[in-house]
């Protein structure tokens, strides 16, 4: 163990024990050390930011001081705008998921099961999926207008793409042995679907959903910044219009934190799920 750790230190690893090279290493427990190191860079950035603001290197409209950003955050939080925008955004993702998830799953299953459907639909679907959210928005606005329906549909499309692709792939990758076993056992199609196909491709499907959710989050921000009248994305565009970049920065931090929390939740979920249903690759 020690030898490997010693080598994993990287280029030019010294033959001396590591503890001698980093005397404080043994003084602090490992998790605390990791936390401090992880916070070092952000702390340095904020310090530099504060210094730049104090020294006036950049005009204050271009880089508001950290203190102002904090005040604005409190103001927005207390005024309820932050929560309101957040809830609206959350609602949109939820609706988009509820629409795109099952649709994507159904389409993915159909494509995975039927080779005929695949050969007819796949090229067109791939072409459609290749168009990013941005390309869809001008077209969808003309069809669905500028209301909530637009945003939900945009998010649903963003969810569908990875779900369809990974579900169809997951089904096609089911080992032949399973399918043969199903045939031998003379399982009815529905039983085969629910008892064999779906559980076997669950890990792949789940990773598709995980990707779908992160795409949905990005699509949410894009549609809110380009075609919405409320929400966190809109708040940032509004802040720019008012030439109050502190609002923009608050928005960025909120979006970042929300993204981190989402990512953490999903990873926990995936870990839990893989423990319950060991993957087949």
């Amino acid at each position: 163990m020690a030898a490997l750790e010693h080598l994993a230190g990287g280029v030019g690893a010294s033959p001396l024990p590591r503890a001698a090279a980093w005397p404080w290493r043994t003084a602090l427990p490992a998790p605390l050390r990791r936390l401090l190191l992880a916070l070092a860079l952000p702390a340095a950035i904020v310090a530099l930011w504060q210094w730049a603001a104090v020294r006036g290197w950049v005009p204050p409209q271009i880089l508001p001081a950290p203190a102002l950003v904090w005040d604005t955050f409190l103001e927005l939080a207390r005024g309820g705008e932050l929560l309101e925008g957040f809830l609206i955004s959350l609602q949109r993702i939820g609706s988009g998921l509820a629409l795109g998830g099952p649709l994507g799953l159904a389409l993915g299953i159909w494509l995975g099961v039927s080779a005929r459907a695949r050969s007819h639909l796949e090229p067109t679907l791939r072409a459609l999926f290749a168009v990013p959210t941005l390309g869809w928005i001008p077209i969808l606005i003309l069809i669905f207008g500028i209301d909530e329906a637009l945003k939900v549909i945009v998010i649903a499309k963003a969810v569908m793409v990875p779900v369809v692709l990974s579900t169809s792939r997951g089904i096609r990758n089911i080992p032949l042995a399973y399918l043969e076993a199903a045939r031998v056992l003379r399982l009815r199609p529905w039983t085969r679907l629910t008892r064999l196909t779906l559980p076997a491709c669950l890990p792949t499907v789940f990773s598709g959903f995980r990707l779908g959710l992160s795409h949905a989050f990005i699509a949410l921000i894009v549609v809110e910044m380009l075609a919405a009248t409320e929400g966190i994305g809109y708040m940032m565009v509004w802040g720019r219009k008012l030439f109050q970049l502190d609002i923009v920065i608050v928005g960025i931090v909120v979006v970042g934190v929300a993204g981190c929390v989402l990512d953490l939740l999903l990873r926990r979920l995936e870990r839990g799920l893989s423990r319950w249903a060991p993957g087949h690759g």
Partner: protein
Amino acid sequence: MTLWKHLAAFALATAAAFGAHAQAQPETIRFGGFGQGFGQPHGVALLAIAQGKGFIADEFKGTPVKLSFEYFTGTGPAINEAIANNRLDVAQYGSLPNIIGKAGGLPTRILASYGYTTVFGLARKDLEVNSFKDLKGRKVAVAKGTVLHWALLKALQDNGLTLRDIQLVDLKTADQLAALSAGSVDAAVGSSSLLTLRDKGVGKVFYSSKDQGAKASGFGGILVSETFEKQYPDATQRIANGLVKAAHWLGQEANRDEAYRIWTLSGMPYQAFKDDYDGVSLKDAFNPRVDAFLLSQYDDAIDFTKDNKLIRNDIDVAKWAAPQYVENALRAQGLQTYWTNRAALVARR
């Protein structure tokens, strides 16, 4: 002998230095303004005429000063950011972003008025909307935070309504067009860009600020950055000279068609300018004076932005305005009586 020689040399040197300082000119003057897309370095309103007919360039003939013109889409924020980053010296843009920038601490001075732009109200063809009064309870799209937002309020007030009587949706031009044709909103208030929908048969015009004149139209200023003005007062004066020449040129009816043609270089269609300015006296519309009338309108707009929580700090309009440059130019060109000095619309603060 040598003493006189020294004194003479010293006198000459001082005169030369003084002369050089008084003639200190910038290397480049960077102009910016609101514009259309498709990448054209041409714009509209007063600055475009001053540029297109070479009035400003003429003022700097014989000097090594270079002029650059840049026209932005998504104007207000982009221009304020450019001024803050010291990438623009003179900018022509709407009054609300002028105010937002100044209230945010941007060091600008109002050099001249860039003219008045007509504000249109367009409603979906299938709806029973023929005047502002019919807007009650309907969904109306406007670009919030722009002078069009202010103009909407003015028009509502004139019809006995308030912003609370309508459902306001904040959309920019492109989205307004799409939302109207998809039926998401009932009406939109904006510039002549809205008229493409009328031409396509999707909407009908129910309001035009031409009937109200300047007091309900879109307005804004040609602003100069304070640092530029302090450093190059002579150049600033020359710019004002060029702007006044352009305004005077616009005042002559014979030049109307040519003016439209110069403005179409920006990418907007000829018809749009006819819709904007046919029937309007260009002389009145492009009165460049920073007089009591203009300043009272700015006052009104500042109150509007404060009421709508668009700005955090107040602005001293008297200190913000720099009317002397245009006035000097008028005197120099013998045009003091060409435009009447308009009285304030409402009592000045």
